[in-house]
């Protein structure tokens, strides 16, 4: 009885030591494979749908056609021109909106008086869905680069401002008190206590500002532009070139993802001091 039990236990042990390893290997493969399931499946479905005639090529061209369109656009320098236009107006608008958002958010967060002056107005501006400003911006600034950049700046400004304001408000008062007790002076308290304390909020604002910036650059280019990836979208639609539309869409996806990852890396570097759910446990291991 005893020996039987011992043997079965040993068998169980060897079985147990083999199975989890195999399981782990499969889990690893699955881990990398799973995210590709839907895109690859979609691609196959797409191919089948077009070649079998369910969908007409003028509505959805083959993936290979899109690849050719892409290389054509690259070779002729068209794509570089549109990308540059989009990225440039996004960058200028983003920086403009972010700088004003952080500055005004900090000021309003630190001074009750300033908050009383600016906050109700900004709340009012926010109450209007941002795209509804487009006609007014076009009337005021004309159909030009200025209107587009300012529209993007407005879209970026709002989330940056509100998150900065919330960030300053969330700074532990007891830390600010340390600054006062040790007579650090206003500028040093701002630089070493309030700004870093508000940083998590500011970065949240900058990130949602970025996604709104992309939204607004598309809006601006759809409505009034002759360059840019957004223009490529409208132009593709009006000339019945779905391949160009899809190239533009893919580029928006790639650039948006890339810029967000870039900001995420900045965030990670700046917030090292913080222990979050995501970073917990890493410290103990190292």
């Amino acid at each position, binding site marked *: 009885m005893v020996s039987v039990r011992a043997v079965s236990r040993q068998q169980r042990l060897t079985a147990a030591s083999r199975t989890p390893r195999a399981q782990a290997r499969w889990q690893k493969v699955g881990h990398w494979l799973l995210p590709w399931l839907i895109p690859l499946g979609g691609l196959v479905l797409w191919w089948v749908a077009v070649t079998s005639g369910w969908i007409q090529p003028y509505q959805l061209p083959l993936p290979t056609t899109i690849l050719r369109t892409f290389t054509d656009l690259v070779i002729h320098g068209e794509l570089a021109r549109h990308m540059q236009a989009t990225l440039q107006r996004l960058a200028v608008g983003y920086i403009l909106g972010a700088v004003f958002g952080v500055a005004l958010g900090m000021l309003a967060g630190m001074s009750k008086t300033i908050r009383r002056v600016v906050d109700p107005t900004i709340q009012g501006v926010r109450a209007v869905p941002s795209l509804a400003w487009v006609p007014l911006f076009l009337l005021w600034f004309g159909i030009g680069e200025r209107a587009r950049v300012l529209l993007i700046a407005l879209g970026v400004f709002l989330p940056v401002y509100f998150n900065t304001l919330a960030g300053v408000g969330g700074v532990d008062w*007891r*830390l600010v*008190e*340390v600054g*006062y*007790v*040790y007579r*650090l002076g206003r500028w040093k308290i701002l630089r*070493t*206590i309030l700004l*870093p*304390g508000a*940083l998590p909020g500011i970065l949240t604002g900058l990130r949602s500002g970025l996604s709104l910036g992309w939204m607004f650059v598309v809006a601006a280019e759809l409505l009034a532009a002759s360059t840019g990836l957004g223009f490529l979208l409208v132009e593709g639609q009006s000339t019945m070139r779905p391949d160009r539309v899809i190239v533009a869409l893919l580029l928006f996806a790639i650039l948006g993802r890339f810029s967000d990852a870039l900001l995420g890396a900045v965030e990670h570097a700046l917030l*090292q*001091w*913080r*222990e979050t759910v995501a970073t917990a446990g890493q*410290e103990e291991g190292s």
Partner: protein
Amino acid sequence: MPGAAFTVTHVSVAFQGQPVLQDVSLEAAPGEFLAVVGASGIGKTTLLRLLAQMVAPSEGSVQFSHDAAVGAVAPQTAIVFQEPRLLPWLRVWQNVALVAPGKTADERRRQAVAALETVGLPPESFSAWPRQLSGGMAQRVALARALVTAPSLLLLDEPFSAVDALTRLRLQDYVLDLWQRYAFTVVLVTHDVDEAVYLADRVVLLAGRPAGVHAVFPIPLPRPRSRSDPALALLRGQVLSALDQSLVQHDALDQALSSREENVPSGIGSAVS
């Protein structure tokens, strides 16, 4: 008294019309170690904030040591709070260097390192983030941050109340050691009577509502003191019974003021521990 580290004369402090301290007079000789005890919420911290010039008296005056050459000068005041209050986004040494008096960044860094060494922080923790420190270690850094300013007046607001018992005893001896080495004036607010009589030259009992100086107990024991000295136990008993009495008076007052409210059971155990 001329030459006193500070002189508090008939000071009252009120918050939004509510008096917290009334007619408090207190002074300390330079280099004296004062402990302030009293029931929780009585106004001990307010007295400390008064000395840190974080609150202004509504009546009376607070004067600091008079330097004949310079005139009235605000003392170099440093404070250690109940919590370490380190800036979580600065490394340990940067927290100390932030308030260091040095002219160049390099000098401030050296001062910070020296202060951290003084409080016995292990060097491998110097460039850690504050969140990686234990409570006792973080409180040491807070102490180093106070020391790096070369204070003439060191204010301690229950600095050891949040650390474990053993760490507390060690930190007490550290403070004692630093005080003897640098000869600054110390005002320690505490709810721990043992701590007060072991460390201080005089123990000040705050009581009443609004609070005033109820009694002052000199602790005329030579140093180094032994925690098990019977004379210390005797003095502790005196301070405790005075504290207890002040609490009983409190309760009587509370009852008289609000007969509807339920009486909160009081005693040394609940108020002191």
